[in-house]
């Protein structure tokens, strides 16, 4: 074993076992690339599933950009960004030594349409020509909008311009799946690896052991270091136990990390007075905004003055404290997270200071003819997603200062999502949050504000049910831009425009603060997902 003091060197970082301590499975409910839904290919899935493109594995700003993975570049657009062409690298092999072809990638994408394999990202169905009606390859039908002129080339034909396609190609749906090994729902029991590790054992929701894939090497993959020889993950631990183990860091736990557990406020309070522990925390940000959502179809939230009054009354300092104070969250006045990749431009449409402006709020309520307003704020019954009772009470207390009586209604985990994403059952006002599927403005704004994405039968995130032709047109226009740097200012401007309408009240952007074991190295933060990259950390 190594001495903790030695510096990290990618050349000699190989060896040892990395332990992952998680509350829930690091591979989603299913370890099937068709069903996984994680940003940028995920932390653990991308150790097994290489994709056409991937996130750039470097520290800082640059980590929000796309890098080629299986493909030779991040994709060639044509036809106004409606056609995207990729070429595969040479020497790619599956864990059994068979070469990876473009047909395997096509099969992988097609099978994600099968109703037997629900889950996964929604974009392909919407974007690919014929995707809306396609029911997967198992009944013998192919999806014609994906073409494989040869074993190295794959072409995607889209319904409309999508400049962000390279970002989407980082998703696990773009991983090759050998048709011969595909057993449908059974595939996840032994998914075939194209990455540095293959699955040795996997018990859903319990444990996962990864060992080296002998057909992978750094020569065919410049995006992963894959330092540990072996990775053992344990799921189903409680947050308190994970953090306790990481801070004690005894025995095997010295080589342990977590990919899903942040420090709780209580632990933070303790760690901030212990320099040794403080050293072993990593701080990152995932583009995420917690906000109050309004259903403008419900009175009185159809009245913009009422929404504005609430925006003024809110005490962001209290909300931030409720989730653990300034080290774990930043107050938010914009809907877009404060990262350049999203096109962030600071604005504050309803300036009220960190503690809110109850006087201004009262004034607006009086104008709206609602001096003694009583509202029911819906929230989740637990605090795990920071939309639970803690934030709800902070909002309740702040609104009280403005003369608004807030009643709280808690929903259980299972019901909360169902209720808020179906317009028929959507509450008038509730706590919600939104995270980006990739770090650009599009996936952050479109599902929430694009009027054509109001889904009546469920799965709706346009909570305000806002439909404005001009805004919709602007979404289309920006989507045609395939250069992120050009798109950014337009997203920022659109956000500011939307913010003035008080369709949501942004509360805060969470900060990720995680502990890792004594022997873990190269734990730089990553701005795409706000966490360290398992493919880059080392225990040696």
């Amino acid at each position: 074993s190594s001495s903790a003091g030695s510096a990290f060197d990618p050349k000699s970082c190989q060896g040892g076992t990395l332990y992952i301590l998680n509350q829930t499975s690091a591979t989603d409910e299913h370890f099937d690339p068709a069903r996984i839904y994680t940003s940028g290919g995920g932390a653990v899935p991308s150790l097994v599933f290489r994709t056409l493109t991937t996130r750039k594995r470097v520290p800082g700003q640059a980590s929000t950009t796309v890098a080629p993975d299986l493909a030779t570049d991040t994709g060639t657009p044509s036809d106004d960004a409606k056609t995207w062409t990729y070429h595969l690298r040479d020497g790619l092999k599956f864990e059994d030594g068979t070469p990876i072809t473009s047909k395997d990638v096509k099969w992988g994408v097609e099978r994600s349409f099968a109703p037997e394999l629900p889950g996964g990202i929604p974009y392909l169905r919407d974007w690919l020509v014929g995707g809306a009606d396609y029911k997967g390859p198992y009944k013998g039908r192919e999806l014609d909008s994906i073409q494989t002129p040869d074993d190295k080339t794959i072409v995607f034909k889209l319904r409309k311009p999508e400049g962000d396609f390279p970002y989407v190609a980082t998703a696990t749906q773009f991983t090759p799946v050998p048709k011969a090994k595909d057993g449908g729902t059974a595939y996840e029991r032994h998914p075939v690896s194209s990455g540095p590790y293959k699955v040795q054992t996997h018990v859903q929701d319990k444990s996962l052991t990864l060992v080296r894939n002998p057909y992978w090497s750094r020569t065919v993959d410049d995006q992963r270091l894959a330092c540990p020889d072996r990775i053992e993950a344990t799921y189903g631990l409680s947050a308190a136990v994970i953090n306790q183990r990481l801070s004690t860091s005894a025995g095997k736990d010295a080589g342990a990390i977590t990919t899903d557990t942040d420090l709780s406020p209580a632990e933070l309070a303790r760690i901030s007075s212990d320099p040794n522990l403080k050293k072993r925390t990593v701080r990152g940000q995932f583009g995420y905004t917690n906000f109050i959502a309004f259903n403008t179809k419900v009175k009185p939230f159809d009245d913009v003055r009422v929404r504005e009054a609430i925006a003024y009354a809110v005490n962001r300092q209290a909300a931030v404290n409720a989730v653990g104070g300034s080290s774990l969250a930043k107050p938010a006045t914009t809907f877009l997270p404060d990262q350049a990749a999203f096109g962030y431009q600071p604005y504050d449409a309803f300036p009220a200071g960190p503690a809110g402006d109850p006087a201004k709020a009262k004034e607006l309520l009086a104008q709206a003819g609602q001096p003694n307003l009583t509202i029911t704020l819906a929230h989740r019954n637990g605090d795990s997603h920071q939309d639970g009772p803690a934030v709800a009470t902070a909002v309740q207390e702040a609104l009280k200062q403005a003369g608004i009586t807030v009643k709280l209604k808690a929903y259980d985990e299972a019901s909360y999502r169902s209720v808020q994403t179906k317009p028929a059952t959507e509450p008038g006002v509730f706590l919600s949050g939104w995270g980006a599927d990739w770090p650009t403005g599009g996936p952050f704004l479109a599902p929430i504000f694009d009027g054509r994405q109001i889904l009546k039968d469920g799965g709706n995130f346009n909570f305000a049910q806002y439909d404005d032709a001009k805004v919709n047109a602007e979404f289309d226009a920006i989507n045609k831009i395939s250069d992120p740097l050009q798109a950014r200012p337009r997203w920022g401007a659109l956000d500011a425009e939307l913010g003035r309408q008080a369709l949501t009240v942004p509360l805060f952007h969470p900060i990720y603060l995680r502990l890792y074991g004594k022997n873990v190295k190269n734990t730089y933060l990553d701005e795409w997902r706000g966490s360290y990259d398992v493919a880059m950390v080392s225990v040696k």
Partner: protein
Amino acid sequence: MTRYLLRRLGSLLVLLVVMTAIVYGIFYAIPADPAVLVCGKGCDGGQLASIHHKLGLDQPITAQYWHFLEGLVVGRDYSSGPDVSHCAAPCLGYSFQTDLPVLSLIAQRLPVSLSLTAGALVLWTVTGVSLGLVSALRERRLTDRLVTVFVLGGLGTPVFVSGLLLLMVFCGWLKWLDFPVYVPLTDDPVAWARNLILPWLTLTILQSAIFTRLTRTGMLETLSEDHIRTFRAYGLPERRVIGRHALRGALTPLISINAVEFGTVLVNAMLTETLFGLPGIGQLIVQSSNNVDLPVVAGLTLTAGLAVVLANTVADLLYAAVDRRVVLS
């Protein structure tokens, strides 16, 4: 006795049908839609409909329940994509969330829960009985009072408090023990036991309180019985009078207490498993309840019901074996 077992079995069936029907009823009543959870974030109406169809949620709840019962008796078919697989009776169906057969999910987690509860049961029975004994023999003296305080302290401390305290003290601070992970008994019995010490203790702290109180009362009662006086009058050493005769009488009723306390134990075991991250039934209950994973919840209900009735039957049989005056009926 055969007759007794037959009757028990009959009533068990009725009980299980009623219980699972209630589960289906509750499921029907709550607004949560499991398909939303299965489908993921960006799921539109069409996809939801196809998942509803796949999970059979588009059928009326009574039909769903009927299929559940059917699966139990004759088995069910299930489409996995390329082929159709058959789940032979007794089939509890497939989990909405993980697509795994419910039976295998439960079977996989049962050993963990059994290890936890069985070990804790032994521990809390032993602790409870010894403390209760000491307490009764020193009735109203300092020891008795101390035991009372200790026991009630345990009784008034939720497992998630005592468990966390134990963890912090023994693993975090003193470092006497590693943080518990579950090691199967068959792999390494020593590691199995060492890892379960804290979870066992956690349950014991709470549960032994009840045993201590009941043993104390039972001892005080038996000690005033005539046959105890007989043995004292015949000069039997006090140790034997208490250890053999008084204790036996005081302990016999405790057998059925374990069966009665089953519900409480189940809830506390669930909390303990969640806290310590033991992959047992309790954790599965929490997960599947949170995910409205109906087949799993129904399957777990069946298992729990079965376990209770089994526990009660075993308790009755044991009782009859220990106390020959009892006749089973």
